[in-house]
């Protein structure tokens, strides 16, 4: 893209096209659909964290008045081991099936065992008590280090660690071990004047979306089955659900309702396959809703982690070696993003010698799911804390140390490729020159700064733009819109077509109205779906030019498209989009443009955050008093929603750093499964979150877009963690910085 392109709509703060319904309560979320004859499904969940299922008898429950159908694992057709390719990488479908409904063993407290559909929720709830289950209770494995021991009780007798040079012969709770290395870390450490080595611990946390999982489904044999659910990817819900129920994709229509937050946690299936079984066996539509307690106990949190980080640097500020050993909890089934932690931990740094060893470890807790840059926050927390400590020990300003070693274009990453053009240096400079960083701290205040890297992905998006006879158009796209992306899609289409924004209506098509679209996640929507919208809009413009050419009897290349009109360059004549559309039946029929992409060249988005805290030294309570989030957006399509991603990521990261954690008892039962004691940040906990949008264009997108949805959650863990340590004069190594932990650090410091 040559010099900065002049845009008509891009970069404006438009009113989102879907806003009216959301501020009037008319927008329909998953729990808002009721169908005639609908009945209610409820799930029987395991009271044990680790137990064999000896007997499961649902006959008494089925006989209860008002009960219409029952579902257990046996109702799933023979689930094959073949991987399902879904948006979140390969998921072993046997594991997915056993997480949706337990078979032989329950692997976490709250694991679904059976489900009942009945005339009312109350009847369904009572019927669950009539299901007769016999367990052989086993010792739960809850701690990461315990789980990794050779003699630890095993969750899966058939799990052997992948990734060791030779195949181990004993099964283990370590599902996989990965190694990433570059250069020679030992040589690097030998060169270093100062070495920082520290162990870090981060807790299990939840995405905290305010809308619990829910769906309303109706099964019928003639291939007209329908699922209405809250999801980040209805095409992947169709893929996983059809796989589990052995249905052809064409027989299952999935409609994405408005989604009340997902953050990665709604990229898998929990209720949909069960509801369809209950619907099939009862012949009735079935609604299922998780209550908040179930969301915490049985939907995927983000991995708790234990990591050791070692960084070495010379007096001149060169970081000579960076090393980490990372273990992530996967929960009941393998598949934590441990390796992604290894890939991202040190990527903000141009360091020649890097070594990362990562372990994916199963424990008797719910299977983890993605949570905004999955795997990166935990690993980069350790790295950023260690780099800040190194800066302090070298007597170098923490921003300057990061600037001096900043990853740039051409920097070799530990996971392989060299980076293309990125904006970390620009973000660090923006932080250094920010009013926040230039303000002196007062007595008792602490400051932390941290960087964050996330890859961002492209992937498959399909869009059609259908033009109406009056020149207005409908943009049918397939990316569930959580953060306001429909506003960006509308702006990109209007930018290409040159017609007013409100003439274009973006909607999320169901799985029967457009080809496969990958889930909304990986910060891909504005980048990849945006690219497909632009392609579809250009397709429409081309057809409009051809129609105008046919009316003027000239060739299409003699027609130019400017500001929503065709211009006849081979003579007289100008025709607006509306005029051309009005004559479509005369020029060959209606116009519809398509854009099908497997978008490549997703540009990483770097973030740098600055946080000031004050600590009540007598109680250990932390207050965040100032916060600045800086991030590279490549090109901000809708600045308000770009800022919204920075601020939302920062708030979740601050929660992760301050007060969010799963508290388990020794039997593996979560003790704070509710918003009262799982403490996400409140309006009164946070200051205004100032934002700075950096724009280093990503030339693989027509307008230079980089996804911004995820990087923002990474820096706060270390920005807040280091600021707390700075305020109390002690080293923080364990999150969250809850008052009891901080007070202990203060007391130990003496």
């Amino acid at each position, binding site marked *: 893209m040559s010099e900065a392109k002049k845009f008509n709509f891009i970069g404006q*703060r438009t*009113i*989102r096209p879907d*806003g*009216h319904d*959301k*501020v*009037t*309560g*008319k*927008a*329909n*979320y998953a*729990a*808002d659909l*009721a169908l005639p004859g609908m009945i209610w499904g409820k799930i029987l969940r395991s009271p044990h964290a680790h137990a064999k299922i000896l007997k499961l008898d649902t006959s008494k429950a089925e006989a209860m008045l008002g009960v219409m159908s029952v579902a257990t694992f046996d109702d799933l057709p023979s689930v094959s081991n073949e991987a399902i390719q879904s948006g979140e990488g390969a998921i072993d479908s046997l594991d997915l099936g056993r997480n949706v409904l337990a078979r032989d063993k329950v692997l976490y407290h709250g694991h679904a065992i059976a489900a009942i559909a009945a005339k009312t929720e*109350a009847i369904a709830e009572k019927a669950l008590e009539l299901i007769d289950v016999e367990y052989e209770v086993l010792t739960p494995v809850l701690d990461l280090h315990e789980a990794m021991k050779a003699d630890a009780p095993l969750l899966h007798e058939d799990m052997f660690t992948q990734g060791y040079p030779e195949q181990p012969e004993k099964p283990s709770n370590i599902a996989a071990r990965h190694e990433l290395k570059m250069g020679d870390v030992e040589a690097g450490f030998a060169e270093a004047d100062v070495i920082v080595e520290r162990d870090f611990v981060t807790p299990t946390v939840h*995405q*905290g*979306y*305010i*809308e*619990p999982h829910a769906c309303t489904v109706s099964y019928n044999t003639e291939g007209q089955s329908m699922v209405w659910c809250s999801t980040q990817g209805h095409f992947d819900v169709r893929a996983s659900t059809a796989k589990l129920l052995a249905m052809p994709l064409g027989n299952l229509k999935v409609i994405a309702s*408005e*989604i*009340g*937050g*997902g*953050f990665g946690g709604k990229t898998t299936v929990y209720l949909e396959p069960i509801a369809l079984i209950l619907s099939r066996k009862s012949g009735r539509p079935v609604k299922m*809703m998780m*209550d*908040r307690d179930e969301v915490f106990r049985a939907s995927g949190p983000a991995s708790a982690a234990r990591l050791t980080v070692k960084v070495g640097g010379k007096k001149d500020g060169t970081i000579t070696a960076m090393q980490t050993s990372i273990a992530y909890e996967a929960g009941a089934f393998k598949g934590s993003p441990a390796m992604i932690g290894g890939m991202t931990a040190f990527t903000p740094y141009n360091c020649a010698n890097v070594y990362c060893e990562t372990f994916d470890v199963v424990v008797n807790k719910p299977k983890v799911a993605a949570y905004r840059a999955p795997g990166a926050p935990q690993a980069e927390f350790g790295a950023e804390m260690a780099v800040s400590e190194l800066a302090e020990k070298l007597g170098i300003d923490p921003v300057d140390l990061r600037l001096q070693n900043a990853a740039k274009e051409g920097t070799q990453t530990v996971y392989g490729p060299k980076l293309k053009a990125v904006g970390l240096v620009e973000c660090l400079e923006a932080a250094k020159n920010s009013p926040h960083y230039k303000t002196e701290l007062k007595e008792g205040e602490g400051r932390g700064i941290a960087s964050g890297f996330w890859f961002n992905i492209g992937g498959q998006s399909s869009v059609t733009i259908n033009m109406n006879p009056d020149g207005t158009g409908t943009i049918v796209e397939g990316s569930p819109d*959580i*953060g*306001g992306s429909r506003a960006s899609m509308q702006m990109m289409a209007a930018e290409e077509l040159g017609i007013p924004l409100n003439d274009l209506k973006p909607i999320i098509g169901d799985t029967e109205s457009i080809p496969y679209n990958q889930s909304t996640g990986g910060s891909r929507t504005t980048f990849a779906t945006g690219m497909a919208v632009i392609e579809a809009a250009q397709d429409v413009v081309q057809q409009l030019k051809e129609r105008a050419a046919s009316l003027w009897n000239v060739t299409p290349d003699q027609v130019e498209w400017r500001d929503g009109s065709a211009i006849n360059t081979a003579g007289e004549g100008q025709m607006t989009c509306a005029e051309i559309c009005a004559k479509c039946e005369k020029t060959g029929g209606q116009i519809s443009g398509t854009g099908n992409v497997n978008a490549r060249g997703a540009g990483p988005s770097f973030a740098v955050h600055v946080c000031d805290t004050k600590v009540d030294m007598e109680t250990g309570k932390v207050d965040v008093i100032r916060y600045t989030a800086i991030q590279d957006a490549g090109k901000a399509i*809708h600045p*308000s*929603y770009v*800022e*919204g991603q920075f*601020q*939302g990521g*920062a*708030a*979740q990261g601050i929660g992760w750093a301050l007060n969010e954690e799963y508290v388990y008892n020794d039997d593996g039962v979560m003790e704070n499964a*509710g*918003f*009262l004691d799982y403490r*996400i*940040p*409140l*309006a*009164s906990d*946070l200051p*205004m*979150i100032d934002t700075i949008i950096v724009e280093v264009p990503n030339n693989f997108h027509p307008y230079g877009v980089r996804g911004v949805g995820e990087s923002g959650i990474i820096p706060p863990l270390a920005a807040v963690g280091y600021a707390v340590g700075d305020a109390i004069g002690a080293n923080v190594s364990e999150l969250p910085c809850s008052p009891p932990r901080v007070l202990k650090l203060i007391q130990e410091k003496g």
Partner: protein
Amino acid sequence: MTKVHVTTSINGDETEFLCEPHDTLLDVLRNDLSLTGTKEGCGSGDCGACSVTLNGRLVCSCLVLGVEAEGAEVGTIEGVGEADNLNVIQEKFLEHAALQCGICTPGLIVSTQALLAENPSPTEEEARYYLAGNLCRCTGYDKIIRAVMDSAETMRGEG
């Protein structure tokens, strides 16, 4: 169990319904009266997504029994603004992009309306503490508070 007949007023409309004694006002609004604008986020009064007004007082409808609505005045999101045009608070929430997923928005708009009726010129801190019972996980609250302060200013300007 035999259902209870309740006569009440919802957004100024005379309304009758039958409900079980254990049904909450939230269950009644959503399942019996199809007023699904009021959302359930937790069912225990900890998230505010189900905020409504009961006789002018801001409450969580998940912590009110449906039968308690007898003879009461209930105000829900569906009663905010007119059918064809939004009120100032709704306009400002859109203008400031004070919502992303929007599940918390109905509760926040009802709560903001109650706040500004009680305190037409709140400070930022007063607004943040009054709205502390409305959880939002997407926005980090910054733009919500800016929309609330702007609404207050605009309404005072008109007032």
